Structure formats: C-alpha cells, structure tokens
C-alpha cells in the first residue's frame, strides 16, 4: 500500500514533530498559554486515529509506509490494528491532557518552551513506536523514546539527582534497546521476517525456529528494562526527578508500557510456550509484589505512585504470560484503566505540590476545602485504581481474577500474588487520594489554593473518561478493548465485562482485595515503619548496584588508560619499535619474502674502508663513556656516509652531508659542554637485553627488507624520464638540481619553509623567557663561564 492511500495517518506521526519545532517560538510569544495551541497537535492526531477506528474494529489492519533502504529490505512502514489503535489513542489523548497540564505546571519557568518541545518530540517517538510495522522502524522509534525520556528526566539538569536519574534511565533502557536490536536482527536472520505484519502472519515460524530461546531472551530483556521489571525497576522511581507532567505521561501512561506493548504485539508469535508462561509470570509477579511493598514504604506522593506503577507493570506482564485468553483480556483492560487513572493521579500529586508546597504525605492534610476539584479528580483516579465499581478499574480487576482463578498450584499462586498486589495498591491509591485532603490541615501549609484551569482539566478529564468508559462498557469494548485483545491473541476476541455483579469467585476475590486494602490503609503508619526498616535492613539494592557498576566502569576505563598511557616515554618507544620490527619481519617470514642469501660482495679496498669507517663511528657512539669521543664518533660516521655518497656518483649529497655533519658536531659540542649530563645512559643489564633485542630485530628487519628490494628487478622509468627531459624541458645540466628547483620546485619551497619555521622556533626557545617558572636548578649559563 502506498502513502497516498492513507495520507492522513502520516499526519499522526508528523503533527507532534511540527508542534515540537514550533513550541519554543510559540512559548516565547504566548507564554504558558502556548499550551492551548500546542495541545491541538495531539488532539488532531487523536481525531485522525479515531476516525480510522471503523476498519480497525472490523479487524482490518491498515498498512502504510514506503521503502526506506531498499537494498537492505528496510521499510519505513506502519500498521494500525486493534493494539496500535488503542495505544495511539492513549498516547495522543493523554498527550493532549499532559500538554495542557504542563502549561499550568511550568507556568513562568524559563525553560517551558524547551519542555514543550521535548515532550512533543517524545510524543512523536511514542506514536511511531506503537504504530511501527517494519522491525527497524520499530527499533528507531524505540531508541527515540529512550533518548527523549533522558532529556525529560534530566530537564532540571542543574540538580545532580536529576542528572543521575536521567543517566540511569538511559543506561538501563538503552541497554535494553541494544538487546532489542540484537533480537530483531536475529529474528530477521533466522526467519527472514522483516515486519510485525509478516511475523503475525507467520504462524509457528518463530516458535519452531532453532533460535527461539535467544530471540525470546533478547526480546524479554528489552521489554523488562523498558517496563521496569525487577531487577531493572530502579530507574523508574529515580525518573521521578522529572517534572510531574513527565511522570504522568512517560513514566506511567505511555513509555513504560512500551515493553508491555512489545510483549502483547509478539504474543501471537512468541507466546504459548512453556518458557513464555514461566518467565513472564515469574518476573511479573516478583515485580508486582516488590513494587507494591516498596510503594507503601514511601511518603512522597510521586514515589508512591511510581512504585505502584512498577507493580502495575508487573501485573500486566504476569497476565500476558498467564496463558489464558481471559487473563490477556484482563491485561488489556488493566492497561487502559491504568493509563487513565495513573496519569490523572500523577497530575493530582503535582497539583497538590503546586497548591500546598509539598508532596510529603506526613506533612499534608485537610486540603479538601482549599482544593475541591483536585480532590474530586484524585477520588476519580483512586476509585478506579482500587478497582471499585462503577469505574474502569473494576472491570479490569474482575477480568483479571476470572483469568487467573483456578484450582491447580500455579493458578493458586498467581491468584494469591494478584490479590496481595492489588490489596497493597488499593491502600496506596487511597493514601494518595485521601490522606492529603482529609483530616486537619497542618500548620506548615500556608494558603493552599486550587490551581488554574490548566492544572485540573487534565486529571479531571482522565478521571471522567475512566468513569464514562466503564458505564458505556459495551461501546468501549466494541471500539477499543475487543479489537486490542484480538490483536494480542491473534484471533477474534469479544470482551463482555460490564458493570454488574456476578456472584462468583472473581467477586469474592475482589471483596477480599478491598477488605485487605482497607485494613492496610488503616494500618498505613506501622506498615510503612516496618517496610522502611526492612529496606534499610537489606541495605544493598539494584540502585546502589548501579552506582557501583558505573563507578567500576570509570575505574576500569581509568586503569586501562593508565596502562596504555603510562606517561613513560621509554614504554611508548618500546611499543612503537616492537610493532615496527614485527611489521617488517613477520610478513616477510609468513609470506616467504625473505631475500636469498648473498655472497660476500667484491668491493674495492677504499669502499671497504669507508664502510668500516661509518660502522666504526656508529659502534663507538654506542659503547663510549666519554662525551668527546661520542661527539667525534658521530662526526666520523657522518663523514663516512658523505664519502659513500661521493663514491656512488652523488657529489651534491656528499657536499651537503659534509656541511651538515660538521655543523652538527660543532653545535653539539657547544651545547654538550653546557649540559652536565653523562653521555653514557647507565642502562642496567636487565634493560640492555630487551632493548638490544628490539634494536637488532628492527635493524635486521630494515636490512632484510632492503636486501629483498634490491634483489628484485629495477624499474627505471621515472629516473629515465628525469635524465631524458632535464635539459629538454628545464634547460639544466645538473639533473639533481633540476629535479629540486624545477620538477619538484613546490616541494623545495615547502622544505625552505620548514627550515625557516624551525629557525624561528629555535630562536623563540632560546630568547623568550617571559612567564617561565623559576628553574628547578640554577641556570648553567649563569654558573658556567
């Protein structure tokens, strides 16, 4: 299908991005009122998605997109079916509410435009993630949500805790993103399936694949890190350092559900195996209990909500892996309910903070008169979270218990875990929704006040939607829940749950949950004390583990750097020359490039003399302990080389070499008399042996290379060119001079430049002493005559 077939759906992806680009400009022009026009973008996207609902609820997925990298078979393609439809509605709908809320919450903040921009960017990424069909498109959007989440958590980047939370979230979810990339590539490599549509239509291909277990493991790591399952859950509470709109949007309603989305999406292809139905309930259940218990140990409203979010995500994962169709229906209903009530409750926490100046439950109370609308919104959320009728959360809980209940051991354990988790969350919900508003107002709160319309319109709307959706349950199920559950199951599913009491096991379990929840609520203080004591008693946790791991990483990098860059010059030189020797010798030996053994050359006696003279000069420099001998020997080897040049038809070289060697010896002698250092370096034997070995190896390498080269035929084309054209083109008799000043004139000019710059540098080194630190030793120029 081409892009023109479903043109408007591309706008869903485009609108938030456009709004993100405009946000800073609009905010600097309109201030916090920019929230109203900016909220139009997600609202319009919501409307476009909703307008395509007819085909989706009839079970007809819409596919759109275009080729991205055709040579690799990668497309930029999307799929709108029941699952992505529901998620897209949540992302854009709650997105609109959050943008409005952020307008009120960050009113007057200098970074409000930046904030709008980030959160709309995130929205674009999240919509793309839930709509993506091609696996690489999915991966790109998945990573974009991690990056925008990092930017939003670290929004208040001047606080260290915010920076830490941002880095922790990025490291953990980014690590999961790498696992996702490996998993998706492995799926493509093992089965050739390149998009979700193909995977969903492939039947048993993935389950039968020999790579099922590694694929499952990688996908689970991705989902568990993103959806904050134990032990990766730590980043979610720390992400509460972000401004409250971020917590409401990313870290409860949308991004943290990306892992749940991925598992729901792949359930028809990866699910229904023993591994799936063991691992998911295990991690989900552990997360549910851990999160719910830790929630009751907190006093900060946002942290309570964050830990219950961890618990809720665990419940959803557990339900996906429970294995029955009704359990999946429960997961679907719970996901919808959770997005509505948790998003709203987070906004309530922010409003309380805004109106009363604190989020600490122990310092709050009696706000019902000052903040009646917020109180109402809080109650709407908490009643749904507690699973009480007639709210959507009630439907979710009934369906959950119907899906889990059973008589075998596994069902009993899962039901017990679900009841315990739900009871804990019930009390947490009402701690957040009742405690700040009931009772007596503490002295510490001055002038509590209701927020402006921007602050309560979001939570109020979400709370009411949770109520209306439950009252009109059959419509909700027809349009949203049933198509979603069908997509998750891979077959047509009809959800029938409505607000009605059916005397049976689920209702009994519900009553038990509520009873336990009320008991826990009443005993909140002692329960918190016990839990806090337990947390401090355990001491070590994944959070501290993260710090240790990051610290360890820095230490490891430091010691590796320390080893590679020891700061000792002889270490560097040794490394360089060992590699030079190896690079020369090893290929020659490995590829048979060694020269043939030559006989003793037949030379004239004066040639032997000059060769020995040069060699003697070199050896004398190496062994002498006398400074003057060393300098003179240096000159001897130089003159030896100069004489060699002369015998071999190179008088120009010989002349230059004589001049340079003479100058070198004179300058060296002048300087050496001022340096009171021994010319012998006193190398201990333990050092002489390896150094000499390296030197011999490197020398042999060069010598053998040269010998091998000279044993090959010589190509004189270039030299012949210069010999033939020297006079013809450049009218010069001395061919070497012609090459230097004519054929390679520019090169010679560069050489003159080098010499000149060197001269200037030498002059500077000798003359300029301004700003020099006091010498560590007396200046020899002053102490020696």
């Amino acid at each position, binding site marked *: 299908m081409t892009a023109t077939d479903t043109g408007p759906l591309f706008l869903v992806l485009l609108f938030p991005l456009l709004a993100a680009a405009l946000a800073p400009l609009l905010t600097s022009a309109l201030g916090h009122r920019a929230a109203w026009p900016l909220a139009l973008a997600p609202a319009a996207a919501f409307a476009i998605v909703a307008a395509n609902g007819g085909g989706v609820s009839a079970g007809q997925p819409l596919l759109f997109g275009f080729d991205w990298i055709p040579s690799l078979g990668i497309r930029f393609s999307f799929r709108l079916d029941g699952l992505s439809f529901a998620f897209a509605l949540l992302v854009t709908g709650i997105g609109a509410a959050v943008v409005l809320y952020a307008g009120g919450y960050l009113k007057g903040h200098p970074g409000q435009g930046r904030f709008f921009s980030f959160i709309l960017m995130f929205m674009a990424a999240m919509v793309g993630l839930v709509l993506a069909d091609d696996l690489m498109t999915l991966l790109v959007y998945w990573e974009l949500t991690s990056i925008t989440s990092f930017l939003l958590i670290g929004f208040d980047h001047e606080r260290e805790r915010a920076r*830490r939370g941002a*880095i922790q979230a990025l490291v953990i979810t980014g690590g999961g993103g790498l696992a996702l990339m490996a998993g998706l590539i492995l799926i493509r490599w093992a089965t050739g399936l390149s998009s979700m549509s193909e995977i969903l239509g492939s039947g048993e291909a993935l389950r039968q694949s020999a790579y099922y277990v590694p694929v499952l493991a990688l996908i689970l790591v991705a989902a568990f890190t993103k959806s904050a399952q134990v032990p990766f859950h730590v980043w979610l509470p720390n992400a509460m350092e972000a401004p409250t709109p971020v917590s409401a949007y990313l870290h409860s309603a949308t991004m943290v559900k990306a892992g749940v989305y991925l598992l729901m999406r792949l359930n028809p292809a990866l699910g229904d195996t023993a591994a799936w139905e063991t691992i998911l309930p295990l991690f989900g259940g552990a997360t549910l209990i851990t999160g719910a218990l830790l929630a009751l140990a907190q006093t900060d409203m946002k942290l309570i909500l964050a830990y219950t979010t961890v618990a809720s995500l665990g419940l959803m994962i557990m339900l996906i892996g429970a294995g029955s169709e009704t359990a999946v229906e429960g997961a679907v209903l719970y996901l919808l309910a959770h997005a509505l009530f948790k998003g709203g409750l987070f906004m309530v926490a922010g409003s309380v903070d805004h109106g009363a100046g604190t989020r600490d439950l122990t310092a709050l109370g009696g706000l019902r008169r000052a903040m009646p609308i917020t109180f109402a919104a809080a109650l709407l959320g908490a009643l749904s979270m507690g699973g009480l009728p007639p709210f959507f959360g009630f439907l979710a809980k009934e369906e959950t218990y119907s899906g889990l209940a059973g008589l075998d051991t596994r069902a009993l354990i899962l039901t017990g875990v679900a009841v315990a988790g739900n009871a804990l969350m019930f009390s947490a919900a009402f701690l957040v929704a009742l405690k700040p508003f009931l009772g007596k107002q503490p002295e510490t709160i001055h002038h509590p006040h209701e927020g402006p319309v921007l602050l309560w319109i979001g939570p109020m709307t979400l709370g009411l939607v949770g109520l209306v959706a439950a009252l009109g349950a059959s419509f909700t199920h027809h349009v949203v829940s049933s198509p979603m559950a069908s997509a998750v199951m891979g077959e047509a599913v009809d959800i029938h749950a409505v607000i009605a009491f059916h005397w049976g096991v689920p209702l009994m379990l519900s009553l038990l949950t509520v009873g336990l929840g009320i008991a826990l609520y009443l005993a909140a203080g002692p329960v918190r004390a016990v839990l806090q004591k337990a947390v401090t008693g355990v001491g070590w946790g994944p959070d501290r583990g993260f710090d240790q791991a*990051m610290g360890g990483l820095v230490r490891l990098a430091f010691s590796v750097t320390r080893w590679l860059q020891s*700061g000792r*010059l*002889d270490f560097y030189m040794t490394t360089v*020359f060992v590699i*030079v020797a190896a690079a020369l010798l090893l290929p020659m030996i490995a590829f048979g490039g060694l020269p043939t053994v030559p006989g003793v*050359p037949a030379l*004239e006696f004066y*040639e032997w003399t000059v*060769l020995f003279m040069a*060699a003697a000069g*070199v*050896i004398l*420099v*190496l062994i002498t302990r006398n400074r003057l001998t060393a300098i003179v020997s240096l000159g001897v080897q130089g003159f030896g080389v100069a004489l060699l040049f002369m015998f*071999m*038809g*190179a*008088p120009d*070289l010989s002349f230059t070499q004589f001049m*340079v060697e003479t100058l*070198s010896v004179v*300058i060296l002698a002048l*300087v050496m008399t*001022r340096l009171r250092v021994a*010319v012998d*370096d006193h*190398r201990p034997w333990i050092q002489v042996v390896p*150094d*000499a070995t*390296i*030197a011999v190896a*490197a*020398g042999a390498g*060069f*010598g053998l290379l*040269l010998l091998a080269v*000279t044993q090959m035929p010589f190509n004189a084309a*270039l*030299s012949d060119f*210069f*010999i033939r054209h020297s006079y*013809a083109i450049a009218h010069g*008799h001395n*061919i*070497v001079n012609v*090459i*230097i000043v004519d054929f*390679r004139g520019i*090169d010679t000019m560069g050489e003159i430049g080098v010499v000149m710059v*060197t001269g200037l540098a*030498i002059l500077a*080194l*000798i003359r300029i002493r301004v700003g020099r*630190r006091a*010498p*560590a030793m007396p*200046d020899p120029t002053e102490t020696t005559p």
Partner: protein
Amino acid sequence: MEVALSALVALFFGAAVYLLLSKHIIRMLLGMVFLGNAVNLLIFTTGRVASVAPPVIPEGATVPPDAVANPLPQALILTAIVISFSFFAFLLVLAYRAYQDIGTDDTDKMRLAEPEERGLPPLGY
C-alpha cells in the same frame, strides 16, 4: 655494493633504535641523527648504486652520454638531509631548554604532561 650497504643500513637502524630506547634525551638525540642517515642510505640503496659518473649532462649534449647515477633518490635525500638537520637542531635546543627548566634529561622525570599521580576522574553524575 647493495649487499654491503644493506648490512650498513641494518647497523644504522639497529643503533638508532637502541639509542631511542634510552631514557636520556641526549642519547635519543644521537639516535635521531643515526635514524636520519639510516633512512637516507635506505632510499639511496633502493635506487641502486654503483661507482658511476654523477648525473650531469655535459656541455653541448641534451642527455648524458654514458650511464649515470640515479638522480631521483639523490634529489629526495638532498631534501631529507636539510630537513633532518633542522629537526636535529630544534630537538637539541628543546632538550637544552628542558634541561635548564627541569634540571634533568631523564624522560622518566619529565612528567608535566602526564603526571605520575593523576587521581580518579570524578565518580559522581
């Protein structure tokens, strides 16, 4: 002749490397001089050597009448000799000034750029 020069080049390179592995700047300086000569001889020998006339065209001719030495390596080496000399002079003055300021020519004690105790980088966020 190439065989004998190959042996000499090997000796020059070996001596240069040995001196450069020293901890003393002044010894390394001598090594640099050897290294320059070693490279020059290497280039010279690669262009093939023999006891022949220099590459000069006699008056009145447009090409040399007999075989002459290969002019190309000579041109390259001529440049190299001058460059190595200025390099040597620069290093010598640098070593001299370093000795004046630090009071030693031992590279182990020249730790201004990479100090001995560098301490851990910050571990916070």
